[in-house]
């Protein structure tokens, strides 16, 4: 059923359709409406779940960890400071192999206080073992919540997923979204029934002291789960496509086949870039857009396959790893390096702290690539 929804409502509806058992979350702008709507949905009895109204994000994720370990399907949502406050437990939930789903509204880190779009908050979780997806629109938010449970709960995967949506540009933007109720989703997403869980009938300890004898191997298993996840993500994306008409992969190509220049982006900038590509194509420029959905596991095969055919690549990051460069930029380069053949890569920063990224900005980026040597970093629109 199609509805006009904000990204936050789409996320809440996704969790509802997935029949989560326990929600634990703490409000923070601009995630707040997710919490508010889920409060209503639970109060109305539309979702049979416990909503744990915790006193901090740290406790939100801890409660999810406890509940998920006990065999419940859990959901949480946060943003920026809240995500950062969870950091220790973000590591924890990945190493505990709990397929929790967290929707994060990408917002800039303080200080100065900012409530606007910026991906630094989630990028800074890239080393924790979570899967990470960046959504372009609200439909993708809804669909990704559903798929994330299916992917994460796969017995070979058992990984949590961080689903990211840009502050305001998605969280507070209404768009047409095709949603399904839980009955329809049931045929796609089986109940959660993990092999290892807290169970009084088969008592086990979880997370005990692990000597150097074994720890290394647990890390190895975690990394391998990510490697396998790439395949599962592709499969589940296809199955979703068959069932619901929209197919997803680790990445999305837009007019890349014959492109000389490819613009690599993520999140809402990816949508704007598609429009910009159309405009540039109208002007006769052979440009393509390459959207990276999954930052973890990182889609190196796709990156190499698609991008190494281009003549120039521009990577647009809505985050900077201070003292280094754009995080997507550096990982794209690291992947391309493997291929052994060199395509000039341009690194752009744009849109930090909610600075708007317009079609004109993308056109400038393309112009820059046409007229200049590769350079890192180019700060689009910065006032010096």
């Amino acid at each position, binding site marked *: 059923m199609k509805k006009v929804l904000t990204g936050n409502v789409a996320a809440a509806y996704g969790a509802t359709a997935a029949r989560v*058992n*326990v929600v*634990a979350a703490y409000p923070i702008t601009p995630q707040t409406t997710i919490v508010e709507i889920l409060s209503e949905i639970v109060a109305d009895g539309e979702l*049979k*779940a*416990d909503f*744990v*109204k*915790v*006193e*901090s994000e*740290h*406790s939100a994720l*801890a*409660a*999810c*960890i*406890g*509940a*998920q*370990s*006990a*065999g*419940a399907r*859990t959901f949480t949502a946060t943003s920026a400071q809240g995500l950062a406050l969870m950091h*220790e*437990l973000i590591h*924890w939930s990945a190493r505990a192999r709990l397929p929790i789903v967290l929707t994060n509204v990408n917002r800039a880190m303080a200080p100065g206080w900012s409530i606007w779009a910026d991906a630094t908050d989630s990028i800074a979780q890239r080393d924790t073992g979570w899967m990470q997806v960046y959504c372009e629109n609200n439909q993708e938010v809804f669909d990704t919540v559903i798929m994330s449970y299916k992917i994460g709960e796969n017995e070979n995967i058992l990984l949590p997923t961080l689903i990211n949506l840009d502050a305001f540009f998605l969280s507070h933007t209404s768009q047409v979204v095709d949603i399904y109720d839980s009955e329809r989703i049931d045929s796609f997403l089986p109940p959660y029934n993990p092999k290892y869980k*807290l*169970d*009084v009938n088969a*008592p*086990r*300890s*979880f*997370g*005990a*002291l*692990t*000597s150097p004898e*074994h720890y290394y191997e647990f890390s190895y298993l975690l990394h391998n789960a990510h490697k396998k996840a790439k395949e599962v993500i592709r499969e589940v994306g296809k199955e979703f496509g068959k069932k619901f008409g929209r197919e997803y992969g680790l990445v999305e190509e837009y007019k890349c086949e014959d492109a000389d220049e490819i613009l690599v982006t993520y999140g809402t900038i990816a949508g704007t870039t598609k429009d910009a590509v159309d405009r540039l194509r109208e002007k006769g420029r052979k440009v393509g857009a390459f959207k990276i959905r999954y930052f973890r596991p990182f889609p190196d095969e796709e990156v190499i396959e698609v991008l190494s055919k281009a003549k120039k690549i521009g990577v647009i990051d809505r985050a900077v790893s201070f003292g280094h460069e754009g995080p997507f930029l550096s990982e794209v380069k690291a992947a391309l390096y493997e291929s052994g053949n060199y395509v000039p890569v341009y690194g752009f920063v744009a849109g930090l702290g909610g600075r708007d990224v317009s079609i004109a900005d993308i056109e400038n980026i393309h112009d820059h690539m046409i007229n200049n040597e590769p350079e890192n970093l180019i700060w689009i629109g910065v006032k010096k």
Partner: protein
Amino acid sequence: MNSEKKVKLTIPEHEVMSPGHLACQGCGASLAMRYALKALGEKTIVSIPACCWAVIDGPFPYSAAGIPVMHCAFETAASTSSGITHAMSQLGQDDVTTLAWAGDGGTFDIGLQALSGAAERGDNLIYIVYDNEAYMNTGIQRSSSTPHGAWTTTTPVKHYKKGPKKNIVEIMVAHHIPYVATANIAYPEDLIRKIKKAKEIKGAKFLHLYAPCPTGWKHPPAITIKVARLATETNVFPLYEVTDGVYKINKVIKNVKPVEEYLKLQGRFRHLSKEEIDFIQQEVNKNWERLVKLEKAFGEDSE
């Protein structure tokens, strides 16, 4: 030897926790868990944050507890348990008891907020702090439960701990939860009764267990029970419970012993001067009087 002669036991015979665990010789915390699990039985899921018990339970791939154990981050005993209890309720396993089991550091300090949150929400769980009055697992650093006068590695003899230990029981009573109690491993029957009582009450319950640590308190392992008993006999650690706000002192010591008897057994107090010992005695007296007043104002017999 293994005769069939029947013996009378004052606490349940059944052992849930197994030997082979990694507690030091004479560890009060290991006894505390042994009693708690006797009271609660196997249908219990425990969350254990970083603390000695995270080690005592044993390393991967082993466990000594005999029940499902969720090792959890230091500050999350209560919040992890909140998640577990809500999961149990949603998954239709309401007969399972959710236990949070943490040290004083994990309770008075880094885990206080999560505990306060769970208490305020009224989450259905039992929170037990086993109090050994310092961070023992990391090698005896002060916590806010460390008593006045004690040496620890972060309150060296020249800067020994000044100021009273945080009154966690009053803090939890101020949360108006249905049950708050103190207990002491030297009095296992009382301890087990209280945990059983907590099990029958719905909502958030809190117990403060006194559990000496020979390693950190610098006393011989053999006198762990003696030291524990003296804590109550000197009124350093009175036994009382607060049920729905109603105070009840469980044990009024007839001949209260001088605090010095308790202090002198422990190396951590070795440096204390006569004046300091007197001061500590006065504080103990004051706290006891305060408790008596509270029972008078808010006890069963108060108007």
